[in-house]
C-alpha cells in the first residue's frame, strides 16, 4: 500500500471531520477564485487599453461619467450636444471621423441600452485592428436596428424580429415606434455585445425625442454663447421650411437640425503615418481648446478609466486579495486543528505501523500526505465551486451591472492555487507530522 492510500484511509476513517475540513478549504478557495475572476472581469471590462477612437466629446461634467455612458453604456447621459456642434466637429480639419451617439433609452425586454448612431459607426474599428462583423445587414434604414451578440442570446432575438424601446428612466413610457432587427453583431467582448444599435434617423423620429423649437433655440444659444436671435438667424432657412410644412401638413416631414441632439461624439483624429504621434498631439490640442470655450469636453477615455482602475478598483482588488488570503489561512488553521486533534487518538495506529516496520519519516510523510490531500481536495473543490458560483451569478451580475461575464473565464493566477495549497498543507501538517514522528512505539503499543 502506498503512503497516499494509507493517508486516504485515515481521511476516510474520519469522514465527517475530513469533509468539514476540506469544505472549509473549498470555501476559502472558491472565494479566492471568485475574487480572481471578478478582478479579471473588471480589469478586462474597465482597463481600456485599446479603444477605436481618440476622443469622446460630450457635455461638460464628469469625465468618468461621460466614458461610462458613451463607452460602457452604464451611466445615464450627462446632457445633450446640439447637432450643429456635431456638424462643426465633423468639419474640423484635424478630425478624420466623427460619429454621433444618442443614448438614454433601453429595450422594453431585457432593459438593454439603445444607442442611436450612423452606419459609419460599424465601419470603424471598435478597438485597435478589430472591426465589427455581422450576421445580416447594417442598419442603413430609418427603423433598422442591429443587436449585440449578448442581447441576441439573452432575449432570443433574431434577424427580422421587431422590438420597442422604453424612454430613458421611465419604465412605463414605451415608445410606440417599432424597430426591426436587420443584423446581429458577432461577439466583440466589449459593451457593444450588450447594446442595441438603432439608426439615428429613426432615433430622432421617435415621438418625444425632438426638442421643442423654443427650448432648442435657448439651449443652443446657451451652448454656443449666442443670443436666441443669432440662433434663429443661423437656422433661418430650415426654420422657414419647418413652419411651412407645419402650416401645410400639420407636422414637419423632416426634423430640423435645431431639434436634433446627440449625447456624445466619438472622434478619431487624422493620422499621419510619417508622424504617428501627430494624431495624439491633435487630440490633446483639441481637448485643450474645448476647455477654454463651449460647454463641451473632449476626453481620451483611457485616462479616466486608468484613474478608476488605479485608485478604486486596484485598491478594492488588493483588499479582497488580502481578505481571501486570510480566509485561506483560517482554512489552513482548520486543517491543522483537525489533524492535530486526531493525533491523540492515532498514536496507537502510528505505533502499530512503526511496529510493522514503518520508520519515523514514513509516519511523518503519511500525516503530511493527509494534510496535502485534504488541502488539494478542498482546493480543487473550491476551484469548481468558485467557477460554479461565477456561472450562477454571471447572468445576475450582467443584468445588474452591464458587465459581460464569460462563464468559462479563467484567470492564470488560478494555476498557483494548488501549489500554494500544497505549501500551506505542508506547513500546517508539519507539527502533527512531528507528533507522529516522535510517537513512542513501546508506550503506545501497550496502551
Amino acid at each position: 500500500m502506498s503512503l497516499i492510500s494509507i493517508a486516504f484511509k485515515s481521511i476516510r476513517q474520519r469522514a465527517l471531520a475530513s469533509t468539514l475540513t476540506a469544505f472549509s478549504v473549498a470555501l476559502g478557495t472558491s472565494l479566492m477564485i471568485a475574487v480572481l475572476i471578478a478582478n479579471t472581469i473588471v480589469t478586462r471590462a474597465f482597463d481600456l487599453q485599446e479603444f477605436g477612437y481618440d476622443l469622446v466629446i460630450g457635455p461638460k461634467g464628469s469625465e468618468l461619467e461621460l466614458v461610462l455612458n458613451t463607452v460602457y453604456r452604464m451611466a445615464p447621459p450627462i446632457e445633450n450636444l446640439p447637432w450643429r456642434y456635431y456638424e462643426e466637429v465633423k468639419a474640423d480639419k484635424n478630425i478624420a471621423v466623427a460619429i454621433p451617439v444618442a443614448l438614454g433609452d433601453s429595450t422594453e425586454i431585457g432593459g438593454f441600452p439603445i444607442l442611436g448612431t450612423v452606419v459609419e459607426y460599424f465601419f470603424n474599428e471598435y478597438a485597435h485592428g478589430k472591426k465589427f462583423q455581422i450576421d445580416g445587414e447594417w442598419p442603413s434604414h430609418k427603423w433598422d436596428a442591429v443587436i449585440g451578440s449578448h442581447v441576441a442570446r439573452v432575449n432570443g432575438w433574431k434577424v427580422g424580429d421587431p422590438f420597442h424601446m422604453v424612454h430613458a428612466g421611465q419604465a412605463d413610457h414605451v415608445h410606440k415606434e417599432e424597430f426591426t432587427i436587420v443584423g446581429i453583431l458577432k461577439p466583440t467582448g466589449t459593451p457593444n455585445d450588450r447594446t442595441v444599435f438603432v439608426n439615428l434617423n429613426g432615433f430622432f423620429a421617435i415621438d418625444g425625442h425632438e426638442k421643442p423649437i423654443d427650448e432648442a433655440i435657448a439651449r443652443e444659444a446657451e451652448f454656443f454663447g449666442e443670443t436666441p436671435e443669432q440662433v434663429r438667424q443661423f437656422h433661418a432657412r430650415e426654420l422657414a421650411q419647418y413652419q411651412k410644412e407645419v402650416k401645410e401638413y400639420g407636422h414637419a416631414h423632416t426634423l430640423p437640425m435645431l431639434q436634433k441632439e446627440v449625447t456624445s461624439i466619438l472622434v478619431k483624429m487624422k493620422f499621419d503615418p510619417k508622424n504617428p504621434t501627430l494624431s495624439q498631439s491633435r487630440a490633446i490640442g483639441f481637448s485643450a481648446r474645448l476647455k477654454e470655450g463651449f460647454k463641451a469636453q473632449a476626453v481620451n477615455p483611457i485616462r479616466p478609466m486608468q484613474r478608476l482602475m488605479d485608485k478604486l478598483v486596484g485598491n478594492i482588488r488588493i483588499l479582497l486579495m488580502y481578505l481571501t488570503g486570510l480566509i485561506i489561512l483560517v482554512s489552513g488553521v482548520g486543517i491543522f486543528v483537525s489533524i492535530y486533534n486526531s493525533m491523540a487518538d492515532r498514536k496507537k495506529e502510528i505505533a502499530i505501523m512503526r511496529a510493522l516496520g514503518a520508520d519515523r519519516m514514513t509516519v511523518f510523510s503519511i500525516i503530511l500526505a493527509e494534510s496535502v490531500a485534504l488541502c488539494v481536495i478542498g482546493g480543487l473543490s473550491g476551484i469548481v465551486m468558485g467557477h460554479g458560483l461565477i456561472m450562477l451569478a454571471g447572468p445576475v451580475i450582467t443584468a445588474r451591472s452591464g458587465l459581460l461575464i464569460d462563464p468559462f473565464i479563467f484567470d492564470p493566477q488560478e494555476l498557483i492555487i494548488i501549489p500554494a495549497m500544497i505549501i500551506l498543507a505542508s506547513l500546517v501538517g508539519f507539527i502533527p507530522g512531528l507528533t507522529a514522528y516522535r510517537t513512542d512505539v513501546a508506550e503506545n503499543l501497550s496502551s
Partner: protein
Amino acid sequence: MSLELKNIKKSYREPDGNILPILDIEHFQVGQAEQIALVGSSGGGKTTLLNVISGITTPDSGQVIIDGNEITRLPEAGRDRFRAERIGFVFQTFNLLTAFTALENVLLGMSFSRGKVDKQLAIDLLEKMGLGKRLSHRPSQLSVGEQQRVAIARSLANRPSLLLADEPTASVDPANQDTILKLIRDMCQEFGVSLLLVTHAMEIAEKFDRVARLKDFNAVLQTTA
C-alpha cells in the same frame, strides 16, 4: 541461528530516581525454525524483551543478533527496515487498523519493506487462516478469533525469519485459544519461521518442546528443554 541475545541489560529509571532492572540476559538463542515459549509473570519484562529483540527499544548494553545481523548496531531507521523485512509481530490485542479491511491490514504488513506488495500472497495467507470470504471485512465486522487470525496473517506477510508473539491467545476465548496457537505454530513450521511466543499461561507454554522462563526480579533467562 535465527536469534541470539548476548549480555542484554535493560533498566528503567523510576520517577523517584531509582533504577529498576528489567532485563539481564547473559545468553539466549532461538534456532532456525525453532519454536520457544517464553513464560514470566506480569510486569516481568516479557514485552520489553520482545521490543528489544525487534529493535523497537534499545537495550542499555548487549547484542541482539538476528540471522547474523547485529541489529543493536543499526541506527533506528535501519532497525525499522530490518523489522519490516525480517520480523513478524502478533500482539495480545491484535492491533489491527480499524479503517483497513482484513486484506488491507495484511497488505500493510508488506508495505514498509523494500519488497513489492504481493496481494496474492496476502489473499493466500488469509485463505489459509480460513478468512477467504472475509477479505473486505473491517476488524469491527470480524469476531475476536477472526481478528487474531488476520493479525497472524499480517505477521507472516513480509515472509519473516522470526515471529514474535506477545500473549497471542490472551484476548481470545478459551475455545479459540488452541486453534489460534495451532495456527501460529503450523504456519511458522510451514514457512520455516522461528517463533518466540510470550505467555504467562503455563498450560500454553507446556505445549512447546522448549520453554524459557524470565525470572521476574533478577531478570535472568533460563531455558528448560
